[in-house]
């Protein structure tokens, strides 16, 4: 599913999600243990992933590279719970929601 160099992240392939609403829903449905494990494995590879992806034309990514980009977008999605909140939801955000209705697609 991912470029060979990033095979170590294959076990997190359920985080390969194309849209923000899917990534946000997965974040809310995940435990901190799950997100911490994903973050701990993916964050050290973020810089290498960027360098790898930048060698390709952004709007013409091969499937494995596109999956890697989606995975890194999910890493960004879990970064707040892991680095800041220590919980999946924004604290005190209760029933508040904010839907992303337009996002640039790759």
């Amino acid at each position, binding site marked *: 599913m991912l470029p060979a160099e990033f095979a170590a992240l294959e076990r997190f392939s359920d985080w390969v999600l194309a849209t*923000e609403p899917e990534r946000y829903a997965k974040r809310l449905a995940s435990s901190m243990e799950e997100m911490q494990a994903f973050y701990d494995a993916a964050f050290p590879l973020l810089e290498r992933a960027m360098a790898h992806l*930048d060698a390709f034309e952004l709007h013409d990514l091969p499937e494995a590279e596109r999956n890697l980009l989606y995975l890194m977008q999910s890493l*960004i999605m879990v970064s707040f719970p892991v680095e*800041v909140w220590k919980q999946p939801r924004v604290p005190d*955000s209760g029933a508040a929601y904010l839907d992303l209705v337009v996002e640039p697609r790759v």
Partner: protein
Amino acid sequence: MIMPHFGNPADGSWTEHYPELGTGPVDYSDSIDPAHYEAERAAIFKRTWLNVGRVERLPRTGSYFTRELAVADTSLIIVRGRDSQIRAFHNICRHRGNKLVWNDFPREETAGTCRQFTCKYHGWRYGLDGENTFIQQESEFFGVDKSQYGLKAVRCEIWEGFIFVNLDPQAQPLTDYLGEMAKGLEGWPFHEMTEVFSYKAEVGSNWKLFIDAFAEFYHAPVLHQKQAVKQEADKLLGYGYEGLHYELHGRHSMLSSWGGMAPPKDLNMVKPIERVLRSGLFGPWDRPAVEGLDPLPPGINPARHKAWGMDSFFFFPNFQLLIWAPGWYLTYHYWPTAVDRHLFEGGLYFVPSRTASERLAREIAAVTFKEYALQDGNTLEATQMMLKSRAVTEFPLNDQEILLRHLHKTAADYVREHAGAAR
């Protein structure tokens, strides 16, 4: 007494620079009183210029979108014609009042491209310029003249690619309404920033309360303190917040802010993922290579401050434009739906990403925006609830909250003047 870091105007405070604002406590009944809300609908939202989006949403002949204006009890069609003019019409069929353009759910907005508009009900058709082009079984009618049954037009004018409408046919021209504050921004490369993230939420507060939240940053070191790394958060809380510059322009207003985060002076100020992505709340640290960012138009960073990071321009009644030093912008819109509810829209606009790294830098900015806005949104519901109790009705606003004082006064002035004119 706080010790100013950036200095105040000669008059001693930003607020006292505008004596008409006063410095006393502000009555917030204007945010809970249903009768006042009804008065605002008539006096403000049916008479002022409202931004409904960007021209980039209408790239081709026949591109259109609809805009629900619950606050004015109407729906509009905004469409690009064959002459490439952008026009606005009330979204109502002239035959028997059916909503002309909608899909599946009559209350939801829609967008697309078409050659003409056809009513779902009896098939009446209208050209992109609003002209009535077809009446089903025309001969059954009694001397009906198609030229008299075109779509009902709404004033529609454009400033720097922003489409504005006005439901008052007698309204002054848009550029006169927007005035010198808008003039000072002209030439900034809004048109280059076509990579868009757009958020939407229904918020349980009066429309003015969310504007309040985004019109001051006095709250930022407190409400958002957990978002900075610990040491930085403590420092910010200790300093508090001071704007670089505040300016009122008639009904509109602006504040200019420092921006130590893009790029940060010290990498330890920011979170680990921001260090790798070179981006965060204040946007990507690296400026895009487009014309028009240097030198800036005179209205941006008007104090020409070295520490400048962002300007927030508030166009009365419900449009906020935030221009960031690293070359991107944010829009906020607040669309009232009831005295204690409104639809909030937030848009992030970037120069298109050329690489995956750039795309990810924009992603963290967009994700961070949501984390902050969720905190803000829920706080507003808590405020609305307690204002409604009327346990306390008057509130002291500080000098960093000058734009709030100005907003509530301006809205009240519109209501009063409209009531006076109606008598």
